């Protein structure tokens, strides 16, 4: 049995679960220190980027109280990332919300990927970091077996719609629970309603998360868009309980036998 180091942190309005598989117990202290470093990083991200905190740099930047060059360098990086995702998604990803600057759609995936990279830099070879349902996975949970990721069924609490097997990679799911009530279609200003959830599987969580949000806003058109992207596979459950997936999805994911 492989030893586990599990840490659960409430941060960024969600829950981030760290699950590190230790080669042996002698690694536990070093990995605990790495988790502490990653947790400090996530709280720093929350303080800088939270749109729920009036004193965050993003909130102050949105009110034009401070300039971009007065913010952490990460702020400019994240806004540039938002712009790239906006272009790649043909405008379906937007970093403004109700007239305010809101890069929330990339911050979680980006910060959780960075947290995973902090663990890897500290020597972790097998771990998962789960930021409120968006995952960066490294290595294996046990020798010879990949991480089995249950895709939560959006219409049935604590049930699963699909299972994805990943060694090194990322899985992000966007759905109606985001932003409190909904993801908006930026072209209509109305909530996107065709889909209940979209899952994107890729190598890195930053883009997987952003593209899942964009595909959710696109609705059924998100399938052709995801199909057109190299290195991204998608799976969606529609509001009516039907589903679709990209042609490469069955290589990484499967549907459970009813």
């Amino acid at each position, binding site marked *: 049995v*492989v030893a*586990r180091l*599990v840490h*659960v942190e*409430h941060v960024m*309005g*969600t*829950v981030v*679960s760290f*699950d590190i598989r230790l080669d042996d117990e002698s690694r536990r202290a070093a990995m605990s220190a790495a988790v502490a470093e990653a947790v400090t990083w996530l709280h720093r991200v929350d303080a800088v980027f939270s749109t729920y905190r009036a004193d965050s740099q993003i909130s102050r930047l949105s009110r034009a109280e401070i300039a971009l060059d007065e913010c952490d360098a990460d702020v400019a990086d994240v806004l540039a990332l938002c712009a790239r995702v906006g272009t790649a998604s043909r405008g379906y990803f937007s970093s403004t919300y109700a007239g305010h600057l809101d890069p929330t759609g990339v911050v*979680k995936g980006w910060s959780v990927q960075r947290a995973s990279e902090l663990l890897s830099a500290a020597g972790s070879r097998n771990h*998962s970091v*789960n930021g*409120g*349902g*968006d*995952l960066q996975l490294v290595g294996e*949970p046990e020798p010879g077996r*990949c*991480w*089995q*990721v*249950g895709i939560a069924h959006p*219409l049935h609490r*604590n*049930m*699963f*719609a699909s*299972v*994805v*097997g*990943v*060694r090194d990679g990322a*899985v992000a*799911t*966007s*759905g109606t*629970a*985001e932003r409190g009530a909904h993801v908006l279609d930026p072209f209509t200003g109305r909530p996107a309603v065709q889909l209940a*959830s979209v899952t994107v*599987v*890729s*190598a890195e969580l930053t883009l997987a998360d952003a593209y899942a949000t964009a595909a959710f806003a696109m609705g059924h058109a998100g*399938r052709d868009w995801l*199909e057109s992207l190299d290195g991204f596979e998608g799976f969606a*459950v529609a509001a009516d*309980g039907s*589903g*679709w997936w*990209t*042609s490469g999805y*069955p*290589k*990484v*994911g*499967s*549907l*459970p*036998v*009813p």
Partner: protein
Amino acid sequence: MPASEGDRTFGLVQVRLTITNGKITAATAVDYPQNDPHSAEISAYAIPALSSEVLAKQGAGIDVVSGATITSDAYARSVQAALDAAKA
């Protein structure tokens, strides 16, 4: 595909639905369909919902859960919370 190909530990079965005038008129088990993004054919697949216990019996024990953003309150009742609590 940069994400490594997963080990599919159990069979893949989908149900193909024929929808006529908005109603399901036929449901056929199909084997491993490949979506054709250029197909204009309207087809839909009913997505089953299974519990982690049933998946485990099928040999697909779950290590971690992906789902739309979860609140702290919802986390407490989630399968992810149970997985986190089950420290090996």
